């Protein structure tokens, strides 16, 4: 066979590669490809996603970016921050009547679960964790307000009593509208929107109430 005379592999080129034909789809390869990247890349990618969602909450639009790539980092951070700031600051006696950390935590997550179940039962197409993600991120304005109140308190400016009520009402309305916009972007049957918005309204009312009644010891 004269044509095959040139077909020869020189010794110094190593032969490498895979002989096995993968059985399943290519998805295991895609997952493993992110295992080899440096940790900084992973963290930065997640941080960027969280940051993008924070920006989205401040300027609500009817986009589905919040819904599609859900993550629960932001809600966790916000919830923990809010619960830490609200801890035990609502009574002037030793027998604490104010919300404890566990209480705030449980209320936020339990409330979010109830709203999600309600929207699913009413025929919504949003998934469980997507809804938790939206509701958690929309707590951000209230957390920021709480932070501001606390900072003003630390700086010795008093409890901002008179300003708190209208500010919190405003933020409450803002949160509700953001959450509803994100939620109701084509994920609910059109004639039941009021039924879905009402529990969201109550949920953010309770959180605003907890912040409003916060008096430090």
């Amino acid at each position, binding site marked *: 066979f004269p044509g095959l005379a040139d077909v020869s592999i020189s010794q110094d080129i190593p032969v490498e590669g895979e002989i096995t034909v993968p*059985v399943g789809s290519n998805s295991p390869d895609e997952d493993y490809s992110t295992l080899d990247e440096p940790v900084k890349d992973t963290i930065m990618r997640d941080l960027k996603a969280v940051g993008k969602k924070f920006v989205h909450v401040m300027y609500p639009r009817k986009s589905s970016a919040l819904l599609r790539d859900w993550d629960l980092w932001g809600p966790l951070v916000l919830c923990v921050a809010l619960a830490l700031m609200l801890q035990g600051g609502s009574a002037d006696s030793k027998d604490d*009547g104010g919300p404890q950390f566990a209480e705030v935590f449980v209320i936020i997550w339990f409330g979010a679960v109830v709203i999600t179940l309600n929207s699913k039962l009413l025929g919504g197409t949003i998934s469980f964790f997507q809804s938790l993600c939206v509701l958690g991120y929309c707590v951000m304005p209230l957390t920021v307000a709480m932070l501001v109140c606390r900072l003003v308190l630390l700086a010795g400016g008093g409890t901002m009593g008179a300003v708190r009520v209208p500010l919190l009402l405003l933020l409450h309305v803002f949160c509700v509208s953001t959450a509803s916009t994100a939620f109701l972007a084509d994920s609910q049957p059109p004639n039941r929107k009021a*039924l879905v918005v009402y529990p969201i309204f109550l949920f953010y009312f309770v959180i605003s109430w907890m912040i409003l*009644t916060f008096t430090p010891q």
Partner: protein
Amino acid sequence: SGAPAAEWGGFEDNMQGGGSAVIDMENMDDTSGSSFEDMGEMHQRMKEEEEEEAEGEAGAGEEEDGEFLGMKGLRGQLGRQVADQMWQVGKRQASRAFSLYANIDILRPYFDVEPVQVRARLLESMIPVKMINFPQKIAGELYGPLMLVFTLVAILLHGMKTSDTIIREGTLMGTAIGTCFGYWLGVSSFMYFLAYLCNAQITMVQMLSLLGYGLFGHCITLLVTYNIHFHSLFYIFWLVVGGLSTLRMVAVLVSRTVGHTQRLILCGTLAALHMLFLLYLHFAYHKVVEGILDTLEGPNMPPFQRVARDIPVVSNAILNTTAKAIALTL
């Protein structure tokens, strides 16, 4: 290359089976202790290997391989098969249990409402029915009652805060939620039990729905009287609004019960519990004590020292204040 071709012929059979182009050496040793690792992938490959074994048993190459492996390879494969079976059975059982118990579709029919329906039912809950000889229809819906209970919780929180209620053991949030949900679920269960004893035609969901919508009157009353602190106003609201919603519930229950004694028992219990609950909510969570004494005592009397009330002992507080009020008027 005749003999190698016969051996390698086995490989072509393998490839046509759609599996790997190479005999997987992983199967040949039994070194992995836990066969449960990678069960998902292994299951797929096991299936294909079983097919290949079935095909290739006639082939010489397979038999040679089997003899070559001996007992070690067999044990490895057996172990993996057993583990695989257990995994499959466990997975099937778990998914069956999950789909049975965690299926929210069980609740779906109870949430199938439109906003107009909810509004209509809310208004209806204040209108007593006239026809009590014909069983009245109760909508077995849970959205309205659930939202009303949450609204009551929110109103209670608002009222507790404006009255600076101090709660000894527990927290405001916990108390409010516990009270409202406890009333709704507890009294519904109790009334359902009584209805069962009295042979009334009502199901648990209907009872929950009826009582839930009866809380609409409570919500209105508390919302108004927590913000406008006229004591007589509360009593008027209590009688009128509370009374209307109680009458509605009682009428519906009566229409579904036969026998005078049974009707009396059911309606008396429900009316008493419902009206007393409204009374309790107002007095326990609201700064109304000072209201009474401010209107009764003159400017010379020292102001009433408000003491933190223990919520379960609220009846004592009422007793004390009524005693003081009576003493002042005498």
